[in-house]
């Protein structure tokens, strides 16, 4: 069970959270203007990287907030969590800063 740092409540057991899939997949302001290709990408295409993954979690059984998380999908080590709306951190910088 992961230990996840909620940006509001601090470290909490994974079971209090709901995973929300890849982060920073923005919904177009006006979907009507998006062509099929891009709309399909928005709906379904996912990076699914082996390595650093930016993902959404919600502290569902806690403060209820969605937030973002940078996690290494090989080691499952959580490198950073940050509030929804905050900019995506620089991946390269995050990885160099990590000790497993």
């Amino acid at each position, binding site marked *: 069970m992961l230990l996840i740092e909620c940006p509001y409540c601090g470290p909490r057991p994974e079971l209090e959270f709901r995973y929300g899939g890849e982060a920073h997949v923005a919904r177009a302001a*006006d*979907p009507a203007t998006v062509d099929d290709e891009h*709309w399909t990408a928005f709906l379904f295409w996912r990076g699914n990287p082996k390595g650093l993954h930016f993902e*959404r979690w919600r502290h569902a059984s806690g403060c209820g*907030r969605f937030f973002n998380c940078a996690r290494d999908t090989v080691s499952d080590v959580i490198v950073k969590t940050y509030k*929804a709306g905050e900019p995506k951190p620089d991946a390269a910088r995050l990885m160099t800063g990590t000790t497993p």
Partner: protein
Amino acid sequence: MSDGFRIKGGRIDRAKPISFSFDGTVYRGYEGDTLASALLANGVHLMGRSFKYHRPRGVLAAGAEEPNALVTVTRGGGRSTPNLRATQVELYEGLQAESQNRFSSLGFDIGEINDLAGPLLGAGFYYKTFMQPKGAWAKLYEPLIRRAAGLGEAPRHPDPDHYANRFAHCDVLVAGGGPAGLAAALAAAQSGARVILADEQNEFGGSLLAETTATIDDQPAQDWVRATIAALNAMPHVTLLPRTTVFGYFQQNFLGLVERVTDHQAAPPSAVARERLWQVRAKEVVLATGAIERPLVFAGNDRPGVMLASAARIFCNRYGVLVGRRVILFTADDSAYAAALDLFRAGATIMAIADLRTNPTGPGVDAARAAKLPVMPGTVIIAAHGRLRADGVTLGAIGEDGAVRAAGDLPCDALLMAGGFTPTVHLFSQSRGKLTYDEARQMFIPGTSVQRERSAGGAKGTFALAAILAEGHAAGRDAAQKAGFTSEAHVAPQAKGDIPVAGGFVGAVPQPKGGVKGKAFVDFQNDVKATDIIAATQEGFRSIEHVKRYTTTGMATDQGKTSNMNALAIAADALDRPLPQVGLTTFRMPYTPVTFGSIAGHARGDLFDPVRQTPIHGWADEQGAAFENVGLWKRAWYFAKPGETMHEAVVRECMTVRRAAGLFDASTLGKIEVVGPDAAEFLNRLYTNPFSKLEVGRCRYGLMLNEAGFVMDDGVIGRLATDRFHVTMTTGGAPRVLAHMEDYLQTEFTDLKVWLTSTTEQWAVIAVQGPRARAIIAPLVEGIDLSAEAMPHMSVKTGTICGVETRLFRVSFTGELGFEINVPSDYGRAVWDAVWAEARKHDVCAYGTEAMHVLRAEKGYIIVGQDTDGTVTPADLGMEWAIGKSKPDFVGKRSLSRSDLVKPNRPQLVGLRTADPGFVPDMGAQIVPVANPAPGSSAQGFVSSSYDSAVLGRSIVMGLVAGGRARMAETVFITRLDGAAAPATIVEPIFYDPDGERLHG
């Protein structure tokens, strides 16, 4: 039988004799014994039969690594536990154990014929045969193989025992309570850290419990153990967990421990849990799990009476049992000399100490020589003899050239093997730490850590007691320090006088040219021989993972604790590759097998999942309602009167609603209060329907799509104020809908000032449906004008009922005049009772979900999840009317224009009028164009709703049919499981009161 092999000394309590039985024979032991030690004391070595060849087997080890002595312990009823290691079963008065995997008796087992057929049954033989004729495998061979395989019998009755769970947190978790673990726990605890110390054994002390010569801080080692435990016990921030196995090491220092609470008791109190699962989050971990001795691989090494030297020493010193009177040792390790000396002092004759090494030296060897024990350097055992018990060996001398020559036979009644120790790195590996190979000492030891842990003692390949204690102490301090605790200087305990492990051997021992007859086992439990491993490599299985799976080495219940290193060495040798390159197989949890029940814990019966009941549940129960599970809720399904069938009850309930009225408990309906200045705009974006212009006091149906454009939920939404909506949704969908709304609100539509609060449980909901609905509730309602003009269909008003505040909805899911009375939950039952009292004056009934389904189907109202399945669009349902045309966007809108979603032949919701009015198709029946479609034909759709409608006197059917709405009046066929498909006509999906007059009554 008498316990003739019992000697003086040991940690058993001679004041507490115990009688127990094994395969029906009664024996005597003492408190403090294990089943294995007590049997050995009685001279019983034969304790089991092997998996494949059914070879007679005795005990090999004294602890968790035991592969052979597996027994079933029964306490009657469902309390039967197979595959227990006799070395870990603590003796209690009346214990009953049975041997396993033998056909007839342990002494005579017809399965032993397999031993003779050995050459036919080499590694992977079953992949090469049993293929002809086709089908014979499953019918003929497989059942035979299955019967022969397996070990013990699964229990026959449900387990009546109780299992507990505990979440725990600590600064330092110490796994293993031998010298390393005790020193670590003490050092950590002295600095003030919260410490948990767990050891799988009944007593702390580990290897020290069998130590005779060493002293620690100038006292006998066992006295130091006692003092240390006492010191730890006195500290309130220390939790000592004996009989507790650390079985799993998960992410972020989360560990699973299982504590055996009552298995060692003769009469466990029934109120107490049998086992307790500890789920521990530790800041820091110390792994002090010790090391496990390796057997040596030679012919006959599996015979009863052949065992590990360390085990014999433990039986002797800890349990006061001599495993034999004429003992031969076969060693490559100094520590065997400690065993030899101890057994010798206890009265055994040491027939020979065959040492693989040409020039063994060290304190153990010196002491043995001083005691005139027959030390034979450069000697191997070529084979051990004896069927049900080892009775002798053939010795071999290793020449200068390295060749082995037979050097005569020697009798014995016990043969002890000492192949060196393998550090117990299971937990370290599970934590994803990387092992490194210590070339000189031929062992894998912990290398790079990944989590916040460190190893100490035998687990790290450190074997001299002084060093073990120093390492344990340092590890404990380091762990505490990393967890934020610094201590004033406590010094590490000082030790001397032990005979440490030194040396060792991996692989198959040298043999005379041309080999020897007889089977040399590597994996005892799975009957894997050295030759099997070599054969596998010859067959192309070059990866150690392939070797493991092809030979099954390391896959038995001991997971190769005693065998993996030997298997690896033999494979590496056969492949002519360096051992570390061949590599180990993956260590997986659990360290030793863990009871399913302890993992499931409290999650059984009503605690398996919460049982949610409405405030009115009790009433329905009193009326004898049948309930159905919907999500976590129990919902009243139908209210059969005595003697009524379900069908009769449902017919009565439906007819009553249509004729007069019915009461329905709709409390489970999901509810969300959407509040804030942007509430209407938020709903505009989440539902297909428009909400901006909805007047206060009015309701609107809402259809919710997922982003892919498919229907995900629906419900009625009432506007209570400009900035306040009462939103309802399906019972099962409520959690999903709230999560979906929060997702969009928090991450996409962050510009909106609106908040969501679940109010599902704030309100009990009593639906009163039917022509008499208004008359029923009128006497109870205050402050609300119930007239059709003041309160038309799809409106909501607040007022009081029975003096209680209510949100009263005029809505209908039956097509009748209907109200849904929302009252605060604690009042639900009383208001229901009051409404019921009124209702009875009108000769009405309560109805359940089944009647509700029929009534709504008669009206063609859909149920999301039944008439939709996650692939259905609003247009498929003919619900284009629910889409706000002028809205620029809502969730799912963009997807609706994708090419496949606008195809004309998509399945569309239609009614189906069966030619035979009495034919009620199965829900899920397929729609086909002919009565007898050829197998492999395509379906044109399926039946989504199908009921017997009492009011219409016929069946009513809805279904999704390809291009259905353009096919009105066409005849199609509906499949049945008991014959040809039956004809039906495509009609509009509304069967009763098509103009909706009754709604507005």
